């Protein structure tokens, strides 16, 4: 979907996201929905525009997908961190899972403009869940598809093809976005090959602006201290090597302040 956003487009960088109110004024859906920016353009017939890929799989995204041309929506953005763009032309490998791959295409365009080599791998459980627009192919050197059912491209997962691609193209940096399990598997490979890895993380989010503290993930800071950090402010794009992976539904041991949780002191009326 294309949104006329004025100067918001000027500030949007690959990896940023927007948060949109859904359901109208009397809606029972009180929280905004976060969408990664697919592409932003600061000029054109409609002034600045932002494009989003909306998969209508929940009631909020369905409402949004049902908006008519010229309808207005309430959008806050651009939010969050963006993918770091190398100053030198390097060989970059972009890895996307399912519909989460949307921001990679805008990233590919920027990298291409900087003279980078850009290879892209897109994977999903089946061919219908791969988001690979035709125009996206123009800004990449190679595009590899993987599907778990073998319905398109290579049968298997993105991580099955990564080692060969990294070696073949002398990849110097990996950019990824998609489900957390995929990001974790990509990070393992990037560490094995000693390749930089920037990933856009996903966590349930209520506000998108850093006030609600729901979207946290455990990240190591410069001193090695693990802190629960907001994926809307310190992310969504983070250095993969700083993430403590596999920590959904648990606080990693050693996280700053984790001792305070689970400590059950009893109230003593005589104290």
């Amino acid at each position, binding site marked *: 979907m294309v949104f006329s956003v004025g100067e918001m487009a000027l500030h949007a960088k690959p990896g940023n996201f927007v948060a949109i*109110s859904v359901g109208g004024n009397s809606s*029972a*859906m*009180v*929280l*905004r929905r976060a969408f990664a920016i697919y592409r932003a353009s600061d000029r054109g017939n409609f002034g600045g525009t932002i494009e989003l890929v909306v998969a209508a799989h929940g009631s909020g995204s369905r409402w949004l997908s049902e908006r008519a041309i010229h309808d207005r929506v*309430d959008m*806050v953005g651009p939010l969050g961190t963006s993918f770091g763009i190398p100053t030198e032309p390097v060989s970059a490998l972009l890895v996307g899972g399912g519909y989460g791959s949307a921001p990679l295409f805008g990233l590919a365009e920027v990298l291409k403009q900087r003279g980078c080599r850009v290879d892209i791998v897109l994977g999903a459980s089946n061919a219908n869940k791969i988001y690979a627009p035709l125009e996206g192919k123009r800004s990449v050197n190679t595009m590899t598809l993987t599907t778990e059912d073998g319905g398109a491209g290579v049968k298997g997962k993105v991580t099955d093809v990564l080692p060969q691609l990294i070696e073949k193209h002398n990849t110097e940096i990996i950019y990824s976005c998609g489900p957390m399990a995929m990001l974790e598997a990509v990070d393992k490979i990037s560490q094995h090959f000693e390749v930089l890895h920037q990933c856009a993380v996903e*966590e*349930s*989010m*209520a*506000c998108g*602006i*850093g*006030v*609600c*503290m*729901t*979207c*946290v*993930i455990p990240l190591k800071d410069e001193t090695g201290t693990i*802190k*629960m950090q907001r994926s809307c*402010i310190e992310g969504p794009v983070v250095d993969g090597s700083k993430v403590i992976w596999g*920590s*959904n*539904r*648990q*606080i990693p041991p050693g*996280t*700053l*302040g*984790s*001792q*305070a*949780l*689970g*400590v*059950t*002191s*009893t*109230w*003593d*009326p005589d*104290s």
Partner: protein
Amino acid sequence: MSDFQSFDFRTKFGSRYFPSPIFTASGCAGSGKELAQFFDLDELGAVVTKSIAVKPRSGRATPRMAETPSGMLNSIGLQGPGIDQFLANDIPWLQSKGARVIVSISGETVEEYATLARKLRGINALYGIEVNISCPNVENRGLVFACDPVASRAVIEAVRRNIGGDYPIIAKLSPDVTDIVSIAREVVAAGADGLALINTMLGMVIDVDAVRPKLAGITGGLSGPAIRPVAVRAIYQVHAALPSTPILGMGGVVSGRDALELIFAGASGVSIGTATFGNPTAVIKVKEELLGLLRSKGFKSLQDAIGAAHV
């Protein structure tokens, strides 16, 4: 600004006056910096900061959030940097922005509340202390002080003894009790100048695909318009019993009309929480709508409207 000159929008908790009755709600405004991108913090009656503990807290594991009909569950678990970092970083910044600050504190023991109160003495921007004795996201429900009148009283007495000066103490109570009025009476007797009503209600969502609780913390605090009638009821009951104790009302307020409902029930101020998640400028919207409504209904001051629905 002429609106403010011709209408007395001030409210009062303890010895302190606030130019507007619309505050943020604790835990829904971060440390203030995030919202300052959208408006000036001195437009608010006060910034109520996220409940701070003695030591850093990681908070609970994720998922921490589940949207529910007209509301949401959160299970943050009081994540925060601890009082020393808070005093070193957040307070000076809020002070530099001219914000009136109500610091919300949370402890696991009476002694921790006392320590927190001691550390807050003498802060210029401090307009009051919210004593959060009702966070539902603690590991041991027995530690929700606000479920026990005797425990509630001990905490407030300890804060009163240790804060010194004339800082207003606002006790934040839980609606998850049989008789909120009896808890309110105890904390007021112990020295609370005001009451914050209501904290979130304990709730739960089950993911029917994964067949397990949606939240890693299993239960969470329900907030948003879904709980507004509960807030109105609690405020109404407590105001009827303790008409001279100012109440900071909160619970699903998204509009000036909602705020007015809480004020008519007996609230002297209204905090905006979950609405900020959906609309970062919700506090400003509510403030402007409320002012317009009060004037259009012929009120000369906010004070005239407080508790107006009591029969």
